[in-house]
């Protein structure tokens, strides 16, 4: 057990951890917001909107994330419009492409989770609200949103863990996050197991923190379900 090597590797990997974290946070935030839009379109009465949403969800849940990343990183760069456009300095960056791909992907999965959460709301709760005159945005804000949020917490917790794991794919398009750095160190030193074990520890810690935070959130939101002390 070469403690020095392990420690040095850990330090180097930890210096890449902020990038992993940034990828995760940005993609989850953008993806989450996009998911709200997609879900709203999905449940809209307009057939154009709901078909688009259905297709979007189908495409992004039915294909591997890797192909989505490649399409955005290599595929977009093919078109002159993109290369000549104002956003090009950003779109040529692997990091930006990775964030875009990750966001689009998680938006698809999250939209499906949200749809499940909406369907889980007991109809009687909505009827009760309507019967006292609630409707529109007030109904959404006071009844639908809180109940949906509570219903999706377990599934969304799983989705966030999947997001953390997905950030590793950014290494394939030359983003130097934890997995990318680990792969580089491993190929230089040939000490595969030690290096990747350190990387695994970082990911497991990250996931542990996320799961605990989500569990805390779930607990805080479900106080009314707990029996009287």
């Amino acid at each position, binding site marked *: 057990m070469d403690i020095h090597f392990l420690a040095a590797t850990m330090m180097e990997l930890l210096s890449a951890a902020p990038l992993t974290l940034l990828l995760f946070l940005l993609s989850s935030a953008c993806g989450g917001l996009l998911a709200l839009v997609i879900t709203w379109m999905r449940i809209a009465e307009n057939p154009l909107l709901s078909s688009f949403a259905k297709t979007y969800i189908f495409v992004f*849940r039915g*294909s*591997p994330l890797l*192909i989505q990343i*490649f*399409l955005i990183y290599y595929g977009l760069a093919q078109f002159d419009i993109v290369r000549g456009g104002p956003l090009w300095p950003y779109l040529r960056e692997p990091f930006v492409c990775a964030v875009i791909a990750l966001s689009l992907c998680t938006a698809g999965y999250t939209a499906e989770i949200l749809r499940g959460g909406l369907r889980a709301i007991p109809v009687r709760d909505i009827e009760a609200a309507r019967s006292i005159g609630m409707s529109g945005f007030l109904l959404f804000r006071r009844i639908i949103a809180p109940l949906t949020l509570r219903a999706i917490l377990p599934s969304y917790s799983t989705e966030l*863990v999947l997001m953390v794991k997905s950030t590793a*794919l950014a290494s394939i398009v030359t983003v130097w996050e934890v997995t990318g750095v680990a792969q580089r160190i491993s190929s230089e030193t040939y000490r595969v197991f030690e290096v990747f074990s350190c990387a*695994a520890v970082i990911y497991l810690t990250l996931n542990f923190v996320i799961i605990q935070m989500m569990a805390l959130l779930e607990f805080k939101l479900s106080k009314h379900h707990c029996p009287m002390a």
Partner: protein
Amino acid sequence: MQTDILDNDFSRWMLLLFLGALVTLAVTVCSMALGAVLGAVICSWKLSKTLGLRGAASIYTTVLRGIPELLVIYVLYFGGSSIVTGLGNLFGYTGFIAVPAFVAGVAAVGLVSGAYQAEVYRGAFLAVPRGEIEAAMAIGMRRMQRFRRIILPQVLRLSISGLGNVWQLTLKDSALISVIGVAELMRMSQLAAGSTREYFLYLSAGGIFYLLLTNASDRIFKMLERIADRSMPSSTMGRV
């Protein structure tokens, strides 16, 4: 003239993509099979009375569902290769020996699939109505009989929808073994795109192949669920 060459090339590449899709299917089937065996073993450990087995099973499922699949692939391929190379050195061979990428890829995806399948089987087992097991005990059925005749059929029936999800997951994870050079759909799409510089075209084609695979899988599993549920009531209200 240009379009003729493009058409020929296009057909050739599409054929390669199709062959890649077949390899993807092969990888997925092998990984699911490996995962089924591992999943069953790990599930039985999780339900065991021995603390050591339960702990080992927990570590397995936590780690393999918590770390990126890419890490598992790298460890098995590069780690495996370094072990094999080391063995070769022992016997006097000085070069680098690589583990077959297909084997390493299937093993890696299979290990991850096994972790998810273990959870599916565990959930299904816990959902078997306790009363039915008691009724089997009450007529004197022995443990093995109870398992074979009552528990196993129910667990299989209750696992189908969960296994459908794991299949989709495994199918998409198989794309990751393209990084170690396995000639499956993802790799073929990359090769076609890189060779012709038509990135958008061939990557989209690959994507569409994957969509076809996942869609077909979805339909098949829904059909399997329907068949398995024919013994179940169509509505939750009992009929008198």
